[in-house]
C-alpha cells in the first residue's frame, strides 16, 4: 500500500545552518505517528517541506504517493496541516474562514454541512459568527484544527497542537485526534509532552539536530531500553560507595535516584552496598523508563 508520507533523503540548509541532514522514513496509512525532538531539531522544517511551505535543499517528500513539488495539487489535496504558530486572517469570521479555506481546496457549498459539523465537534458553534480576533488562544487553536480538516484530508499533521494549551483543552484535542484516527485518518503529531506521545502514538520518530535518532513502535521503544529507575530515601552518616555512586542519576538531600540496567545491576546489591556503607534505607520505589528518559538518553540532553 502507498505510504501516507514518504520522506527520502531530505536536506534543508538555511545558509550555514544545516537544519535537516538527510532524513528518510515512511509513515503508513492509518498510523498514529509521533514526531519528537527538542526545540530546533527540525520537526517543523520537515513538516513545512511536506506542506509545501518550505523547499527542501535535497531529497523528496511525497504524500499518499504524490510528490509535494512535482504533483503539488494531489499532494496538498491529501494533506491537512495544523501549523505550530497561531495565525489567522483578522478580516473574517470563524465560519467564513472555514468556508474560504474549503473553497481554496475546490470545495463549495457541498462542504458547508461538514464545516458545521466541524464547528460543532470543536465546540466553536457559539463563536462561528464572531471575528476570529475576539477568540481566546485555545479557541483560535481549534479554528486552526478545523481549517486543516475542511477538505477531509486523509493525512493530518498537527505541529505541537497542545503547546501552551490548558489541560482540559489538551484532553479534548487528544480525544478528537483519536476519533480522527479511528475514522481512518493518518495522524502525525509533534509534541513536547512525551506522555502525550506515549499515550497516543503507535510509532515514534525522534529527531535531533536535523537527524533521525530513532524510529520504533512506542512499545518496543520502552522495552528496548532495558533500564529502570530506583528511588531511595536514605539516612545515615556514610558516603555512597563508588560502585553505587556511578549509578546515581539524580540526588536530592536524602533521596537518590539510580538508573539500573536490567541483568547487570541488581536492586539487592544496591541495598546491601548502602547498608554496608552505613546507610539506613527508609523507602524504596521503582519506576519503568518513560519516553522522556529515553529521549534524554538519545539526544544526550534534556529539552531546554
Amino acid at each position, binding site marked *: 500500500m502507498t505510504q501516507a508520507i514518504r520522506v527520502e533523503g531530505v536536506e534543508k540548509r538555511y545558509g550555514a545552518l544545516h537544519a535537516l541532514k538527510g532524513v528518510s522514513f515512511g509513515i503508513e496509512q492509518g498510523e498514529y505517528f509521533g514526531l519528537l525532538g527538542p526545540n530546533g531539531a527540525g520537526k517543523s522544517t520537515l513538516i513545512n517541506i511536506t506542506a*509545501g511551505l518550505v523547499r527542501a535543499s535535497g531529497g523528496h517528500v511525497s504524500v499518499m504517493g504524490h510528490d509535494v513539488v512535482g504533483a503539488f495539487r494531489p499532494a496538498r489535496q491529501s494533506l491537512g496541516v495544523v*501549523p505550530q504558530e497561531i495565525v489567522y486572517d483578522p478580516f473574517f469570521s470563524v465560519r467564513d474562514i472555514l468556508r474560504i479555506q474549503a473553497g*481554496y481546496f475546490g470545495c463549495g457549498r457541498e462542504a458547508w454541512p461538514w464545516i458545521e459539523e466541524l464547528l460543532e465537534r470543536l465546540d466553536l458553534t457559539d463563536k462561528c459568527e464572531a471575528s476570529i480576533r475576539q477568540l481566546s488562544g485555545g479557541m483560535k487553536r481549534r479554528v486552526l484544527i478545523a481549517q486543516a480538516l475542511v477538505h477531509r484530508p486523509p493525512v493530518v499533521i498537527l505541529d505541537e497542537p497542545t503547546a501552551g494549551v490548558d489541560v482540559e483543552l489538551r484532553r479534548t484535542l487528544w480525544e478528537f485526534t483519536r476519533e480522527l484516527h479511528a475514522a481512518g485518518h493518518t495522524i502525525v503529531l509533534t509534541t513536547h509532552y512525551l506522555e502525550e506521545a506515549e499515550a497516543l502514538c503507535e510509532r515514534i520518530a525522534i529527531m535531533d539536530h536535523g537527524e533521525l535518532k530513532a524510529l520504533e513502535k512506542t512499545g518496543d521503544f520502552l522495552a528496548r531500553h532495558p533500564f529502570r529507575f530506583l528511588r531511595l530515601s536514605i539516612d545515615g552518616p556514610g558516603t555512597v560507595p563508588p560502585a553505587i555512586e556511578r549509578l546515581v542519576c539524580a540526588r536530592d538531600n536524602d533521596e537518590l535516584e539510580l538508573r539500573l540496567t536490567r541483568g547487570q545491576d541488581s536492586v539487592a546489591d544496591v541495598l546491601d552496598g548502602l547498608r554496608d556503607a552505613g546507610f539506613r534505607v527508609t523507602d524504596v520505589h521503582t519506576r519503568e523508563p518513560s519516553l522522556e528518559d529515553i529521549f534524554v538518553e538519545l539526544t544526550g540532553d534534556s529539552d531546554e
Partner: protein
Amino acid sequence: MNSPVDQAALARRFNPRGTWTLFQKEVRRFLSVIGQTVLAPVITAVLYLLVFQHVLEDRVNVYPGVGYTAFLIPGLVMMSIIQNAFANTSSSLTQSKIMGNLVFLLFAPLSAAEIFVAFVAAAIVRATCVAAALYAVGWLFIPLPLQAPLAAIAMLILSAACLAVLGLIAGILAQKFDHLAAFQNFFIMPFSFLSGVFYSIHSLPEFWEHASRFNPFFYMIDGFRYGFFGVADAPISHSVGVVILFFVLLSGVALQMLRTGYKIRS
C-alpha cells in the same frame, strides 16, 4: 467522519473554484474596509480637484476646447487607479505575510498562475470601484462624456492590472509595511505625479518632455485621457502597446517569483 478520497479532486489539473474563492476573498477584504479603500481615495482626489481647479482653471488651456478642470479629471482618476490597484495586492500580501496567515493560501492546491489571476483581478475590481466613484463625483464639477469609451476601459483595466502586478512584486519583496510605504512614496507617487496628471507634457521643457516618454505611467494617463477627449499627447496605439508590454514584463517577473516561491516559500 472520514470519507473516500475524492478522486476527481486528486486528478484535477486546474482549480477554478479555488481561484474564484481567493478572488472573492480579496474583494471582500477591501470592501470590508471600504472607507479606507474606496471612499478615502475619492475624497483625496476631489480635494486635488477643488484646489487645482480654483487656482488654475483660468490660466491653463491644454487642448483646444478642453478646460483645465476637464483635463484634470481623467488624470486624477488614473492616478487613483494606479495607487489603489497597487495598494490592494501589495498590502494584502504583505499583511498576510506579517500576520502569518499566508500559510493557508500556500497549503492550498493553487498554482502560481491561479494565485496571480485572483489577486490581480480583485485589484482591478477595486480600481474600477474607485474610478467609477470618482468619475461620478467629477460629473458634479463638469459632465465629461467619454469620446472613446473602449479606449478608456481598456486603459483602466490594463493600467490597474500593471499596478496590481507591481503590487504583487512589492508585496513579495517587502518584509514590513515600511518597505511598502517606501516603495509607494519613492516610486509610485513620483512616477504618477510626473506623468502628466496635472499638465500636458507638451508644456514641459524639451528634456523633460522626452524623459516623460520613458515613464510607463505617462502612457496610462495619456491613453486614459484619450478615452475622454479623443485627443492626447501620444497616439492611443502607442499607449496601449506600451502598457501591454509593461504588463507582460512585470507579469513575467511576478509569476517567476510566485513559481519559485521567492521569499514566500523559504
